[in-house]
């Protein structure tokens, strides 16, 4: 193998580049881990004793495990020095979304009710990451129980978008997306119930994939809506995303909804896509997922991407999915219903917070539950639990939950018809670029609209990718393109995404993330402001 060329600043390297250099022992895993830990120390900011973000910084991490990371990295270096052949991503750093149980590391899911909880076991996806000998840097911030599109619903304060520290990084996986855009890690994990991987990728200029439902085990993930939840990879390039996808996915007997059978080779698909040719591929443009409600700059980048796809040899056709118009409405009945049931487990008895109600001498278990859940859950979680309880209550069940499940059938039929005409479907990932922090906090419906284009995939279980399509002219912020494929055909996302990325980066002369503002300057300004 010829020598690889890593950038002088190791945090600017791709996971693929690091993997190659590590295998060739041109760089040590300890050096790589240390470079990323230093970067985290420089840009992520600090938290108070209660875990709440202080001052203006990225705040992508809820917990950084520097000692463990360096020990894991050293073990990888020692194994390589002893001549062992290790998995492809051995020694490459990764950030883990705090929705995933990590043995020995705090797991809060962005909630007070789990503050201080240290799981006695690893989620299967975390076990897979450890088996791949990757180096876990820490746990990333998220909207509480993955409910939100901005991370503002985290009990520990929001994560800030590295493109503009006064804007949201998307949600619920804003911590993972921001950690990538801020070069704190080359890889991160996410979960996507309605867009929580794809929308943050879109607004931070990064790449994220929601695999086919069941492709990544849900064992050890704090459940939000079990029929919609799907974990997936987050990275800065399509190939890096594929490399992590390969590690995360696979059948797991611990998850009864885990897919059996063949999993497509997504890494090979990403490499094939990178040649830039899409001859013989038909791309369907979903009529219902653009137009009114989409920012002008978002639509302009979308049109441009369609031209690039055509240039690459793809045939672009228009498809119609009329029931997508009610996908959001169905989602906001199905999700709260499932969530209200899943979150019943937080009962103050076996783990997590326990709060005794005031003014009661010897409270009952029921009174303790009520007081604990009132103190431990934030506004958005309470809102959705109450909504779900309502939708499932007798007298309303058929009208709401029952109707929503019928809509789900219609959406699956629309997808089936569309995939009869096209190999993949495309749309903008999110209707807007990153909005200012606080902008939609008082208006839950406006927040929910962020996921209007991503939700149909979850309702039908099909895989989806978001990757950068450029910067919006009006605000200079990243815009994401969404690619959707039929269930089980995750490789098509990587083939098409890989081609688009290759052509766009050649045209731009580099990645979108080369244009992220210098964070150290922004942080110095923030610090000066604070001392004045």
């Amino acid at each position: 193998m010829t020598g690889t060329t890593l950038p002088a600043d190791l945090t600017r390297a791709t996971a693929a580049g690091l993997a190659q250099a590590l295998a060739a022992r041109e760089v040590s895993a300890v050096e790589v881990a240390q470079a990323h830990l230093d970067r985290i120390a420089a840009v992520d900011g600090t938290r108070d004793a209660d875990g709440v973000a202080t001052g203006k910084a990225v705040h992508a991490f809820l917990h950084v495990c520097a000692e463990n990371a360096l020990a894991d990295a050293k073990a990888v270096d020692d194994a390589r020095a002893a001549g062992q052949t290790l998995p492809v991503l051995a020694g490459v750093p990764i950030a883990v979304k705090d929705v995933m149980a990590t043995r020995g590391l705090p797991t809060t899911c962005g909630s007070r009710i789990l503050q201080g909880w240290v799981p006695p076991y690893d989620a299967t996806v975390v076990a897979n990451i450890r088996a791949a000998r990757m180096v876990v840097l820490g746990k990333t911030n998220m909207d509480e129980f993955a409910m939100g599109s901005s991370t503002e619903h985290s009990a520990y304060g929001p994560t800030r978008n590295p493109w503009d520290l006064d804007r949201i990084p998307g949600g619920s996986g804003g911590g993972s997306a921001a950690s990538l855009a801020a070069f704190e890690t080359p890889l991160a994990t996410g979960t996507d119930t309605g867009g929580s991987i794809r929308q943050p990728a879109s607004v931070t200029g990064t790449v994220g994939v929601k695999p086919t439902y069941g492709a990544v085990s849900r064992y050890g993930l704090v459940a939000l809506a079990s029929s919609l939840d799907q974990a997936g990879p987050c990275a800065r390039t399509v190939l890096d995303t594929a490399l992590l996808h390969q590690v995360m996915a696979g059948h797991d007997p611990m998850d009864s909804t885990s897919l059996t059978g063949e999993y497509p080779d997504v890494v090979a698909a990403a490499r094939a896509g990178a040649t830039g040719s899409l001859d013989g591929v038909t791309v369907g443009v979903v009529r219902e997922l653009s137009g009114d409600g989409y920012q002008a700059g978002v639509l302009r980048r979308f049109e441009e991407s369609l031209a690039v796809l055509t240039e690459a040899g793809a045939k672009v056709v228009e498809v119609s999915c009329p029931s997508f118009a009610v996908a959001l409405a169905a989602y906001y009945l199905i999700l709260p219903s499932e969530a209200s049931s899943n979150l019943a487990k937080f009962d103050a008895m076996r783990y997590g917070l326990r709060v005794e109600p005031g003014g009661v001498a010897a409270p009952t278990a029921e009174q303790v539950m009520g007081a604990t859940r009132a103190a431990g859950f934030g506004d958005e979680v309470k809102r959705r639990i109450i909504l779900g309880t309502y939708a499932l209550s007798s007298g309303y069940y058929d009208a709401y939950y029952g109707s929503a499940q019928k809509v789900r059938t219609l959406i699956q039929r629309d997808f089936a018809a569309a995939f009869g005409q096209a190999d993949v479907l495309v749309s903008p990932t999110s209707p807007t670029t990153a909005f200012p922090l606080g902008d939609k906090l008082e208006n839950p419906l406006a927040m929910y609209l962020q996921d209007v284009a991503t939700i149909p995939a979850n309702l039908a279980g099909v895989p989806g990718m978001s990757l950068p399509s450029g910067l919006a002219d009006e605000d200079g912020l990243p815009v994401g393109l969404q690619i959707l494929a039929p269930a089980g055909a995750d490789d098509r996302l990587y083939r098409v995404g890989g081609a688009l990325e290759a052509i766009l980066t050649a045209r731009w002369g580099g990645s979108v993330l080369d244009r992220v503002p210098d964070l150290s300057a922004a942080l110095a300004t923030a610090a000066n402001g604070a001392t004045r």
Partner: protein
Amino acid sequence: MSAISREEVSHLAMLARIDLQPDELDRLAAQLDVILDAVATVTQVAGEDVPATSHPMPLTNVTRPDEPRPCLTQEEALSGAPAAEAGRFRVPRILEED
């Protein structure tokens, strides 16, 4: 669908075991009204003939052999408990005093 009242929210909160404060009840009633109004469109699109879908993938039940295998130790299982005693979860009383 009719608007959701403050009393209804209070009842739902009781069912969900969340002691909501009076100001939370007011705020939630107003917000849920708006949300329910928006999601009510689902009731108008699908006819009687459309079957319900509860899950994205066709599923069959999965079982494993009923054999002993390694699991958490008692200490690990209790490691996150708010209160434990004599190797068990310690919980508040479950019955009202009569």
